[in-house]
């Protein structure tokens, strides 16, 4: 049975979360949302889940398509505002933030702003949202990207929307980690070779001595993901 990349990504990200840490996701973050809820349902019951609507430790019972939806405040213990979570990050008390980039470079810098010149772009992207501040102040950033090709992983960004404490990058092909300022593969998803990964990546990857295969979701993880997201919102970004 072959897992959908969304499930591999969600599961790989969930496993990166430690019990008890504070974790934040923003807009358009369906995969991080599933990852957070999966981690909380499995190995990290004390995860403190923070989101853009200002909900503290909500327990949503239904996943909306928009990750700003009020449904993501259900069961919260406290409601503050987005500004409070940015402040939390600014003072280095936010443990993990999930961010994404249209383009990502070797150093984990990323672009969500423009393809082409900033003032007259070829493609106007949505904008970095909170990234420029969060990536540089949260204790660590986990990036995800639902496409792994040379348009996404580039030698040179058209624009650096954000850079900073990127620790992990999770894609449909691999889990990469930043070592001494450069991304390198930490595990390859089932069926992916280093050569295929390098081929899909616009910058040169260091080849580590040991390069394990990403453990696919366990049965428990698969069941939990399905229970969390029965409507399959985690696949939206692949549409």
């Amino acid at each position, binding site marked *: 049975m072959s897992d959908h990349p969304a499930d591999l990504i969600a599961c790989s990200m969930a496993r990166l979360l430690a019990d008890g840490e504070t974790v934040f996701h923003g807009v*358009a973050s369906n995969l991080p949302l599933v990852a957070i809820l999966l981690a909380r349902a499995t190995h990290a019951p004390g995860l403190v889940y923070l989101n853009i609507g200002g909900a503290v430790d909500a327990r949503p019972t239904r996943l909306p398509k928009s990750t700003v939806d*009020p449904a993501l405040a259900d069961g919260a213990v406290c409601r503050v*505002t987005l500004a409070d979570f940015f402040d939390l990050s600014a003072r280095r008390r936010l443990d993990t933030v999930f961010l994404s980039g249209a383009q990502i470079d070797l150093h984990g810098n990323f672009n969500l702003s423009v393809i082409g010149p900033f003032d007259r772009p*070829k493609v106007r992207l949505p904008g970095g949202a909170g990234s420029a501040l969060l990536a*540089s102040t949260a204790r660590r950033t986990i990036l995800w990207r639902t496409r792994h090709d040379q348009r996404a992983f580039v030698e040179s960004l058209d624009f650096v929307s954000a850079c900073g404490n990127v620790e992990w990058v999770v894609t449909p092909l691999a889990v990469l980690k930043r070592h001494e300022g450069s991304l390198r593969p930490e595990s390859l998803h089932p069926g992916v070779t280093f050569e295929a990964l390098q081929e899909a990546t616009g910058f040169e990857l260091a080849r580590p001595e040991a390069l394990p295969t990403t453990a696919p979701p366990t049965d428990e993880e698969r069941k939990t993901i399905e229970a969390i997201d029965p409507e399959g919102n985690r696949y939206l970004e692949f549409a």
Partner: protein
Amino acid sequence: MSGKVIALADAVARIDDGATIALSGNTFHRSPTAAVHELVRQGKRGLRVVKTAGAYDVDLLAGAGSIDRAAVGYVGFEALFGLAPNYRRAAEEGRLVVEEHACYTVITGLRAAIQGVPFLPVAGMFGSDLIPAREWKTVFDPYSGEELVAIPRLAPDWAIIHVHRADPEGNAQIRGSVFEDLLMANAAERVMVTAEEVVPPEALRAEGAQATVPGFLVDAVVHAPRGAWPCSCEGLYPVDDAYLSAYVEASKDEAAYREFLQAYVLQPAALAGGEPL
């Protein structure tokens, strides 16, 4: 009801071409859409919009040519429909200047306005091309010498805030997520509240200090039931995916977009909002 309650058209007529307007809510949630539609109907030009994360609201204003500047952290249709089609087109064709912000710099700029200072410093951000692109300057902490990015004051002429309930004095209650709305209401020169329900003068007081936005900050109260539609209003109605899907579909080409605009926005009948497609 007397006090500050006026008709939507009259309230929106008070907003001058060229004004900077801050819009409540975040992406598809509690956007002041009734007022946004009226801005388009009145053919406003040269507006500048302020929002951390916009979606339909900013996209519509960009497509209709109402705004020529957007001070925003994010404009998109999330994973539902991807890029914002009209916003993107306007920016790529040079009709819209995107004053890209990080969401926190919108917040910081509003805070500067609220605190009566011309700038506020922020932690982090070095290395982002936003600093040169936005021509943001730096300051040095006079105690330690540390260098910090200085975000200039962002003071909207108007904040337009969609709320659950308001009384005629402008005391307004938001249920659930407040997003950046209180910052906007405090930072803005003037505040328009559009309310699902206009309650009697003493209601919010009698229920025990239920106002989120104090009335003394508010200039105009508009009764606008379903006034966030097609966006959600927490506890009342969800995002109208079908409408948004049709909007995005129509927005792929200019003629279809104009037709859609005519049918769903320019007709005053569309004001009430929410008739199913």
